[in-house]
C-alpha cells in the first residue's frame, strides 16, 4: 500500500488486530520516507495505542518528535481540523514532506452524523491542499452499518479494504452488505487466499456474510468448494450469501447440488439490490 499526500482513506475494524494490516504499513512507510506521523486517539488511552505500535514493530521512543500519539481533547469538527491543519503546516515547516494522520472516529457516535460529515469534508479539504494524508478508523462495534456505508463514499480510495491483489484475482472487504467483493478469476492457485479472506470475513461479521460475485469471470470447482465449505461451517442462523452470481456459475452450483448446501444462498443478477 503506497499512499501519497492528499489521499484520504478509512479502515473499518471489529477488533484491534484488524488495524495492523492497514495502519502498520501506513506508519512504517511514513517513517521510512519523509513524513511526520500523528496518531490521534479518542476512547483509547494514548498509552494503549503506543503499545499497539510497539506490537507492530514501531518504537515511538525511537521517533520522538516525528511520531506522536495523543488525544485532541475536543469533539468540535472545526477545532479538530484547525489543530490538524496547524500540525500539518508545522511538519512542512520542519522540512517533512507531509503529515500522516490516523485517528479514532468513535467521537462521532456521540456527536452525530452532521458533525462527522462536517469533519470528513473539512479534513478532505486539508488533504487536498497536499500537506497531509490520512486514514480514519471506524470501529464496527459502535458505528451503525448505514453510517459506515455513507463513510465509504466520503473516503477516496477505499482500497484499504483490499485484502488480496493477485495477478488474476482481487478480494476486497465490503461494508454494505458486509462481506467480500471478488473481481477476476478463481482457480486452485487462488483458493488459499480466498479461504483466508472468507475465514476472516466470517470472524469479522456477526450475521450473514455476503460475497459479491458480479465481477467473477471464471471460477472452477475448487473455488466453488471453498465457498461451500465456508457456508457449511457457519453456525445455524448465519448464511454465506453469494450475490450477483453469473448465470453459468449458478448453473454449475446447481449441477453439483450445492444450491441446497446448508448455509449457502445463491442469488443471481441484481438480487443484491432488492434486499
Amino acid at each position, binding site marked *: 500500500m503506497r499512499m501519497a499526500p492528499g489521499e484520504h482513506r478509512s479502515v473499518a475494524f471489529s477488533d484491534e488486530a484488524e488495524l495492523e494490516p492497514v495502519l502498520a504499513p501506513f506508519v512504517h512507510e511514513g517513517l521510512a520516507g519523509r513524513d511526520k506521523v500523528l496518531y490521534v486517539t479518542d476512547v483509547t488511552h494514548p498509552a494503549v495505542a503506543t503499545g499497539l505500535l510497539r506490537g507492530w514493530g514501531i518504537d515511538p521512543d525511537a521517533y520522538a518528535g516525528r511520531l506522536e500519539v495523543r488525544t485532541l481533547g475536543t469533539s468540535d469538527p472545526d477545532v479538530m481540523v484547525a489543530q490538524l491543519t496547524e500540525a500539518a503546516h508545522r511538519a512542512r515547516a520542519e522540512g517533512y514532506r507531509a503529515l500522516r494522520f490516523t485517528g479514532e472516529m468513535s467521537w462521532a457516535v456521540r456527536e452525530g452524523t452532521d458533525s462527522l460529515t462536517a469533519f470528513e469534508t473539512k479534513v478532505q479539504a486539508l488533504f487536498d491542499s497536499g500537506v497531509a494524508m490520512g486514514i480514519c478508523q471506524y470501529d464496527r462495534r459502535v458505528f451503525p452499518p448505514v453510517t459506515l456505508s455513507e463513510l465509504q463514499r466520503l473516503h477516496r480510495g477505499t482500497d484499504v479494504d483490499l485484502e488480496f491483489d493477485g495477478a488474476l484475482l482481487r478480494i476486497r472487504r465490503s461494508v454494505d452488505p458486509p462481506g467480500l467483493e471478488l473481481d477476476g478469476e478463481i482457480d*486452485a492457485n487462488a483458493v488459499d487466499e480466498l479461504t483466508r479472506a472468507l475465514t476472516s470475513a466470517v470472524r469479522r461479521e456477526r450475521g450473514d456474510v455476503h460475497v459479491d460475485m458480479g465481477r467473477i469471470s471464471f471460477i*472452477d470447482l475448487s473455488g466453488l468448494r471453498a465457498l461451500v465449505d465456508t457456508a457449511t461451517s457457519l453456525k445455524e442462523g448465519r448464511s454465506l450469501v453469494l450475490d450477483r452470481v*453469473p*448465470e*453459468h456459475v449458478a448453473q454449475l452450483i446447481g449441477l*453439483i447440488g450445492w444450491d441446497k448446501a446448508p448455509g449457502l444462498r445463491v442469488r443471481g443478477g441484481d438480487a443484491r439490490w432488492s434486499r
Partner: protein
Amino acid sequence: MEQMIHQASLYGSDQEFLEMAVPFVRDGLANGEPVLVTTTSGNLELLGEALGEDASRVDHAETAYYGRRTAQRATAFTRYWRRNSGHRRVRILAEPVWQGKSARDVLAWKRMESGLNVLLDDTGIWMICPYDTRSVGAGIAEDALRTHPSVSADGRTAQPSATYADPHDFIGRCDAAPLAAPPAGSVSAPLDEINDVRRFVAEEARRRGLAEESASLLAVAAHEAARYLGTPLTAGIWESFGAVVCDLRRPGKAISDPLVGFRPPGPIERAEDGLWLARQVCDHVDVRSDATGCTIRLQAAGPRLQTG
C-alpha cells in the same frame, strides 16, 4: 446394507413387463424400501394403472429426462441412493431409451450399463433394467446379457447371465476404436499454463458462435479436464454438425480408470471431481490413453442449438 443387484429383464409384451415390474415394486413397498421407476411414459402409465393406490408411493421419472446423458444418469442413481441413505435396500426400475439413438449413443449407454456394476457396487441398490424386445435390436438385447450379471423375469427370482462380461473388459471393447482425427478446419495450440487453456477454449468457442454462457461452461469443462491431465498440453478445437469439439492432449500421461468422472463429488475433495463436472456440462467426454499420451475429448452443443 444389502449387496448391489443389477438385473436385466427382457420382455416382449405389456403383460410380460407387468409380470416383472408389479411384484418388484409391490415387494419393495411392502418392505418399506424406497422405489424409483424410470421408464417410458407408456410403461409408467401401464404400471400406474396396475399398482392402483400403491402408485402414489412410488418415485418416478420419465426416462428420457432422468439423466439426459450417461454421466448424468449414473449421477442421478447415486444421488437417489444417497438421499435414501437410511435404507439398507433401495429399488430402481430403470429402462433407458434405445430407439432412435445414434450408434455412438447406443454404445455410450451400453458402456454405462456395464459401468453401473462398478459405480454402484458400494450401494444397496437393487436395479432391474427392462429391455423391450419388440423395439430394441438384437445387438442391444444380447449386450444386455453381457452388461447385467443376472436376468429376472418375475421381479423376484433371477438366473445368472451366462454371457455376463467383466465391466473392464466390456468397456475396453467399447473404447477400442480410436477417436476420429480432428478435421482440417481445427485450430490447435500448445499451452503451458492452465489459465491459458480456459482462455483459449472460451475465446475459440465464442468465435464459433457459442453464447457467452455456453462458452463459459465449455471453458470450465476444459479447465477441469486440463487440471486432471496436467500441463503443458496441446488444445485443439473445431466444429462438427451440431457440436463444438475440444481435444486436450497431454504427452506421457495415461488414465487407466475408464469410469473416471462418473461418480458425483461428495464432502471430501477428489481428483476426479473436476472430470465429473466436465461430464455433466458436456454432451460427450471421451478419454483415450495410448503409448504416447492421453487425450480427453469434450463435445458441447453447437451455436445453432434450439431450445424452444
